[in-house]
């Protein structure tokens, strides 16, 4: 067994375990920390797959931005250490059933599907390539989405300011 295979399994187990804990932990702060672990695990998985840039972005935005934001908001709205209310029993039951079924179903479909592996091709993601393509207008250029996203960020920033101005005027600029 290859080392990378083992690493993959470990990473997978880590990600899934942390995610499970994140959605089940009774204390919100713990939950946030487990989310952090999940995100870091995912970043690691990206790293494992050879897309270091994405992994980096993942760490910066998710870990550095979103989770921090979430934690801030937890502090704002919650007394730490307090246990969260239990989920409603009926809903958990139905959710679990539906989701288990959904998972089995989806994975069954994926499993059945014969993905055609192309001839070995070097999958080499250079950061410089990404940078060029991001701002290129030619083929494989992503300047238009880039601009759209920038407008989106601007708009959401304005939105956040409008909504939450009175409480915390700073939270729009997390990026």
């Amino acid at each position: 067994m290859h080392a990378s295979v083992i690493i993959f399994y470990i990473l997978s187990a880590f990600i899934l375990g942390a995610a499970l804990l994140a959605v089940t932990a009774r204390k919100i702060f713990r939950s946030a920390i487990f989310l952090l672990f999940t995100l870091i695990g995912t970043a690691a998985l990206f790293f494992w797959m050879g897309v270091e840039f994405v992994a980096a972005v993942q760490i910066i935005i998710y870990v550095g931005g979103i989770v921090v934001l979430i934690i801030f908001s937890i502090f704002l709205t919650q007394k730490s250490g307090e246990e969260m209310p239990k989920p409603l029993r009926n809903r958990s039951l139905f959710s679990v059933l539906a989701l288990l079924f959904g998972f089995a179903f989806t994975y069954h479909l994926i499993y059945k599907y014969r993905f055609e592996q192309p001839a070995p091709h070097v999958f080499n993601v250079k950061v410089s390539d990404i940078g060029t393509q991001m701002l290129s207008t030619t083929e494989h250029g992503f300047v238009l989405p880039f601009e759209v996203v920038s407008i989106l960020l601007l708009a959401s920033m304005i939105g956040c300011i409008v909504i939450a101005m009175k409480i915390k005027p700073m939270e729009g600029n997390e990026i």
Partner: protein
Amino acid sequence: MGIDFLILMKQEWMVIAILLILLFIKVSSDDWQNENILKLVNILLLINLITGFFGYRDGILFNEMFKTNHLIVTEKNILSLGTFIVSLQSYAWLRNNKLVLEFYLLLLSTLLGMFYMISAGNLLMFYLGLELSSIPLAALANFDLEKRKSGEAAFKFIISSAFASGLLLFGISLVYGTTGTLTLSALSDHLDGSSLQIFAFILLISGFGFKISTVPFHLWTADVYEGSPVTVTSYFSVISKGSVLFVFVTVLYTAFKSYAITWNHILFILSVLTMVIGNLFAIRQNNIKRFLAFSSISQVGFILIGMSGQSQAGTASVVYFILIYTFSNLGAFGVISLVSAYTGRENLEDYKGFYKTNPRLSWVLAISLFSLAGIPPTAGFFGKFFLLMAGAGQGNYLLITIAALNMVVSLYYYLKIIKVIFMDSNENPIKRLLTPSSPKLALIICTTGIILTGFVGYIYEYIFSMSTIF
């Protein structure tokens, strides 16, 4: 290339320019009066609308990330028109609002998002456009900052929309995984009809279904419509919904053409559910906004029928209907937003005896509702007729029958409102409202539109001539 940028993306440029102007005003000074800002914005929107009618060209930009053609330009024009009307109507509400500029910044960025979404030739652009058009909407939904309902609506919207986009993304990822491309025009060549792909396709449809609120993906709609400010609700129900419908029809007709049988059946199920459930809920509503939410849900059921027509008439009837729907729904919302802005009353009972005090507004509301119900001589009749006719082209007579009977049910609740307005008496009716000039203009535009769009056969012919040949 350079001139192409300008001309092909003219509508986007216009919106961006307006955004920049507004941003500049925001940054530069605080001295602007609300009235003046509103005037300026309305003029700018009018310019935007007018420029839309010039310089039609078909073309593709950015490696098919952006594409445009006559139909798309027309669709954008419809959205611009709708936005213009919404903006005119918001006058009464925004007059004394401190955040006018922010409101327009958010509103126009969503409009921009929709433009990109409609022009998207690529699932990435589609997704980005979709998000751009929905995330600021959440902020808009929360614009009545003091109202609890508004916050609740915004929360429900953002969570539902995030959830929906999660599913949509999962679907897109599976599409990508099974076809290897995100470009819509290339997609149809790679479809293999495997179960996984159909699942992905269903996920994709659910994403669309969420935005256009088809049953069972509609549940957020009523709550969000009820909680949001009336102007935003009307924007939600007309512009936001309309834009996604435009994309939906293009995506189905071009990218997923080879799945025609599948989506035809899916649309069958969805449209029946949507009409029936929408109607059943609309019957029991008391809040007029909530009522219009369900009515707009059932309207979508009818639009889906037209979409299932798989013909040139299918596209044409959908676009045509959305144009009519814009006029009709905005006509209704125009009156409601006036009433809401001046009195804050939004319940059906409040409208008792409305005709006694405000006969003109009552007629506008009535005509709009008739148009929504598909009663001649309003344009709604023509719109619905052509939608169902397009649907019948596929021999789906069962569907048509169900739809036609649902129109009867829907007539019930429209007439219920008419009854309240015209026939019921009230000790404490809504007082006589003085309509400011800009909402009045909006209402005149809507009413004229409702009357003319149907009768003038040329409009339909025009849309038809541009529509995608299936």
